[in-house]
C-alpha cells in the first residue's frame, strides 16, 4: 500500500486544518509511512463477507424530547477567546462583495 510522502502529508494536513512547519512535514512523512506499512498487515485477512463494526451501542431509546436546563448564553460564551455582539468572533471570511473568502 501507499507510503505517505511529503505531498500526501501536506494534502492531509490541509484537510485537517493543520499548518505544519517545514521540519514537521518530513518527520510526519517518515513516521506515518512507518505506521501505514505496519497497518497494511490488515490486508492479509480475507474480510469479503465480514460486516463492518460501526457501533457498539446497539439500539438505544432516545431521551424524551423535552426542554431542559442548559448553559446560559454567558456560560456558553465564557470560554471563547474572542466575542462580539454576544457571539463568537472570527476573522472576516466573506469579502465585502459577499463572495466567500479563505
Amino acid at each position, binding site marked *: *500500500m*501507499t507510503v*505517505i510522502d511529503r505531498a*500526501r*502529508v501536506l*494534502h*492531509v*494536513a490541509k*484537510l*485537517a*486544518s*493543520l*499548518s*505544519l*512547519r517545514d521540519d*514537521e512535514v518530513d*518527520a*510526519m512523512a517518515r*513516521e*506515518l509511512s*512507518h*505506521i*501505514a506499512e*505496519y*497497518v*497494511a*498487515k*490488515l*490486508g492479509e*485477512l480475507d*474480510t469479503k463477507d*465480514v*460486516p*463492518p*463494526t*460501526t*457501533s*457498539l*451501542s*446497539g439500539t*438505544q*431509546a*432516545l*431521551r424524551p424530547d423535552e426542554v431542559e436546563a442548559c*448553559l446560559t448564553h454567558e*456560560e*456558553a460564551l*465564557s*470560554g*471563547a*477567546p*474572542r466575542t462580539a455582539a454576544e457571539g*463568537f468572533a*472570527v*476573522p*472576516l*471570511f466573506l469579502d465585502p462583495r459577499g463572495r466567500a*473568502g*479563505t
Partner: protein
Amino acid sequence: MTGESRDSVGALAASVQRGEVTAVEVAEATLRRIDAKDPELHAYLTRAGETLLEQARAVDAKRAKGVPLGPLAGVPVALKDTLSTRGVRTTSGSKILEHYVPAYDAAVVERLLAADALLPGKTNLDEFAMGSSTEHGAFGPTKNPHDTTRSPGGSSGGSAVSVAAGMTPAALGSDTGGSIRQPAAFTGVVGLKPSYGRVSRYGLIAFASSLDQIGPFASDVRGAARLLGVIAGRDPHDATSRDEPVPDYEAACGESVQGLRLGVPEEYFGAGLDGEVDASVRAAISELERGGCTVKPVRLPHTDYAVATYYVIATAEASSNLARFDGVRYGLRVEASSLAEMYGKTRDQGFGDEVKRRILLGTFVLSAGYYDAYYLKAQKVRTLIRRDFEAAFAEVDAIVSPTAPTPAFRLGEKTGDPLAMYLNDVYTLPASLAGIPGLSVPVGPTKAGLPIGLQILTPPFREDLALRVGAAVEARNSTL
C-alpha cells in the same frame, strides 16, 4: 482512622460516616499528602484548594444535620484531566486547553459529588489521552513511584500514581485502548475499564468515541467496585450509555470463584512477553485453579491484528473529534488575518506532536481513495476480533492474561518510536475494540520491585465477574 494513612475506600467512607474523622480533616490531610509527594511525581496538573474544602464542609454539615452520607463519604477521588469540572481548569494535557475552565461538570463528576466524594484535583495524562506513558502531555511527564526513572504508563498515569503513591485511595481515568489498565499494572493498583456503554461519557473530552470509557482506579478491588457502582448507569445526556441494571459490585467481590471457567489465550503469552511477567501471571492463574476455578486454553486468533485495527479506528475518530478545537469557542487562539489561517496556526501551536501525528493518520485513513483500504477494512477486522471473544466466552466465564507485556519501561525509552509505544498496548486493545470490560489487578512484583498486572476480561456488562476473580487474586496476594 486519621485520614493520613492509606485507608481503603470502604474503610475511609465508613469512618467518615461514623464521624471518627471529618471530611474536612480528610481533605486537609489529602492536600498535605499531595504537597509532600507531588513535587517529585507530578501526578497533578491542577490541585483543588478552596473547592475541595467547600465540598468537605458540605459533607460534614450534612452529617451534622443527621442526613445519611453517601457511599463515598469523604473519600478523595482524583480526576483525570479529561473530565470536565465546572469552575476548575480542565486541560486534557494540551496547550490548546491550558486555560480552559468548563461551565459544566461531567456526569461522573456529578455522580461522585452526589455520593459525597471529595475531588482534590486533576491528574496528568498524555495529551488528549493519546499515549501509553504520560510523557506526551504539554505539561511534563508523571513519574512512577516505584522507580522515578520509569513511566507510570498511560494515558491515565497521573490518576494511577495518585493512588499508587497513597495521595488518594481512588481516582477516575479513561481507557480508549488500555489507558486505565496498563498504568494500573505499571504502578501496582487496581484499574477497571468498564463495558462500552456502562458509564456515561457526558463531559469527557472525547478521543475516540466508539472506544472511550471512564473507569476507576483504587487501592483495592472493593474500592474500584464501589466507585463503579456510583458512576455506572444510563444517562440521558449520553445516548451510548446503556440502561442495563447496576448490580452490587462490592457484593460480587465476596462471592466464591469455585467452579468458574477461566480461559488462557495463548496469543497473549507469545513473543515479546517479559519472562517475569509471564511467570507471575501464570502463578496467579495456578492459584485461581487451586481456589476451584477450571482453567483451559482459549484461542483469540485475530489478536495480532488488534494494534493495526485500533490505530486506524482510533485515529480516524480522533481526527473528527479534535476538529472542534479551532480557536473559536474555547481554548487557545492564534490570531491571523483569515479564518483558515487562524484555524491552521491555532492547531499547529496548540497540539503536540503525537496528537498531530494521530490527526494526520486519522485524516489519511478517512480520505478519498484510502477509506476502503484502511478505515472500512479496520472496521471489518474489528468484527473478527469481537467474534473471537464471543466464541471464547461460549466456552469460559472469564479470560485471564497479562495486562502489559513488560513491567514499567523507562521514561524516554519509547518516545522516539511511536510504533514501539503502540505495540506495548497489544494485550489491552482487543477488549477495547470488542467493548468488553477489563480489570487489572496487581500480581507482581518483579525481582527489581516493579509491579505486574493480571488482566481479567469478561463478557459485556459482566464487570461483577471480573471483580469477583480480581478479589480472589487480591486475597491470594495478601496471604503471600
